[in-house]
């Protein structure tokens, strides 16, 4: 065994740790810069973003796919956020710490790790076939919500936990009820954490294809959805089919689609960061 001087081993470990960091960052930067470089011409032609696809998607734009993705995200947020936060409040503030509660908490953590294709098949079985909703926005939204709920509950619970227990005690000791304590003390201080976590997790599902594959997406629709029972096009799936199923399509069109998807995800992450900065500045403890 060679004995290295402390100075040298310090330098070597520094170098290795730095290399690890570079290796972690470089692929991400490469992906983003390649997509931007190859997609920017079509992307910034704007027509691509605002037109319907024509000629078997060889021409025209990706407008319906953008609308479809945004619709699914927004309706999913409105559906899963209240339910998720409600469940988190119940589990964290009211539920007694017994075997049943502990099992529920454990299964929620595990549900968050179930592969998304499993949720897709579940949605196909329950919403599309059993409830006869058909392949539709509503079936897709319900599937996404079921998939998102464990994540929302987990992040909301950790945000609720980060509010010091002493604040609750101080409020209760003044004769204030448990619900008012939650409403006026716990929630206002937990909301920034909840929102940040939720937006980040929603940004993640914006790119999901598997849960929507059997429940909501259409290969191609010549019109925008009229109701929640219509099928929609979505960006990730559109990206997949243009890249694999349609020969002779311009590569720059595929990259521009990826660019758009990237923009949606990055915008949502950016909003989450803004919210966090805003609330952290106003935090009073």
């Amino acid at each position, binding site marked *: 065994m060679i004995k290295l001087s402390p100075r040298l081993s310090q330098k070597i470990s520094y170098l290795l740790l730095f290399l690890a960091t570079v290796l972690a960052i470089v692929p991400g930067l490469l992906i983003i810069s390649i997509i931007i470089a190859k997609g920017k011409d079509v992307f910034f032609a704007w027509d691509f973003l605002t037109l319907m696809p024509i000629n078997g998607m060889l021409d025209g734009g990706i407008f319906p796919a953008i609308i479809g993705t945004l619709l699914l995200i927004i309706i999913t947020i409105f559906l899963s956020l209240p339910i998720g936060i409600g469940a988190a409040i119940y589990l964290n503030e009211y539920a007694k710490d017994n075997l049943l509660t502990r099992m529920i908490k454990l299964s929620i953590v595990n549900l968050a790790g179930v592969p998304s294709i499993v949720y897709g098949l579940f949605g196909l079985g329950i919403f599309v076939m059993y409830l006869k909703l058909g392949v539709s926005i509503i079936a897709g939204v319900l599937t996404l919500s079921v998939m998102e709920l464990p994540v929302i509950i987990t992040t909301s619970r950790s945000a609720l936990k980060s509010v010091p227990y002493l*604040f609750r*005690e101080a*409020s209760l*000791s*003044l*004769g*204030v009820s448990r619900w008012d304590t939650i409403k006026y*003390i716990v929630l206002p201080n937990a909301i920034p954490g909840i929102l940040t976590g939720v937006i980040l997790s929603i940004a993640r599902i914006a790119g999901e294809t598997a849960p929507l594959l059997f429940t909501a997406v259409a290969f191609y629709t010549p019109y925008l959805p009229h109701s929640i029972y219509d099928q929609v096009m979505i960006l990730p799936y559109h990206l997949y089919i243009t890249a694999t199923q349609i020969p002779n399509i311009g590569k720059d069109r595929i990259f521009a689609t990826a660019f758009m998807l990237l923009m949606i995800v990055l915008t949502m992450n950016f909003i989450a960061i803004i919210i966090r900065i805003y609330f952290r500045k106003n935090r*009073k403890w």
Partner: protein
Amino acid sequence: MVNKIKVKNLSCYYNKQCVLNSLNINILQHEILSIIGPANSGKTTFLRTLNRMNDLNVNYSRKGEIYLDNNNIFFMNMESLRKRIGMLFEMPIPLPMSIYDNIVYAPKLLNIVSNKSDQDAMVEKVLKNVSLWNEVKDRLNSSAMKISGGQQQRLCIARILAINPEVILFDEPCSGLDPISTAKVEESMIRLKQKYTIVLVTNNVKQASRVSDKTAFFLMGKLIEINETGKLFISPQKKQTGDYITGRFG
């Protein structure tokens, strides 16, 4: 004098382990009872049982009865009980809001005050009661987290006064404070006794002798001795009491 609180055969347990053993105590109206004793003697458990803060702890269980004005507190609604028995904690815990809102927070929710001018009057009155008004009157809207520890503790007392309780429990309220802040808190306590009944848990034997009318000595979950403060400190009946107050242990 009227008995404000009667404790009958109270025993408390954490995880089935007894921390307070068949306690019997009567607390008179408008007196300051201080409870002294070494760590783990059950003082704080007793206090947190009085306003049922311990009911939130799943490992906690109890036997026995406590009467407030002849009503068993364990049959009362928890919110109305805590409105009648206020509690000051060991560490000052201002709520994360302004000084003003800290005081009006509970009264607003409990419908004690409604309009703004009543609220203003109440804030001024309770802050004057704890001699904090002159120190904070120009920054009532700044965060309560930004004032000093001693000021925070007095703000917490003011917050309790605002809900107008009958009994106030003090749980080692000065353990984190400097001597001058301590003196100010003690001063408020003596002034408060005119209107309220006070139970003070303290690690500071001298503090008990300075402010209280009656002193109880707890050891290992048992009430060893209770007497008027003067008598207990001059001629304790039990050897352990004497040893503790003269500093031979604890």
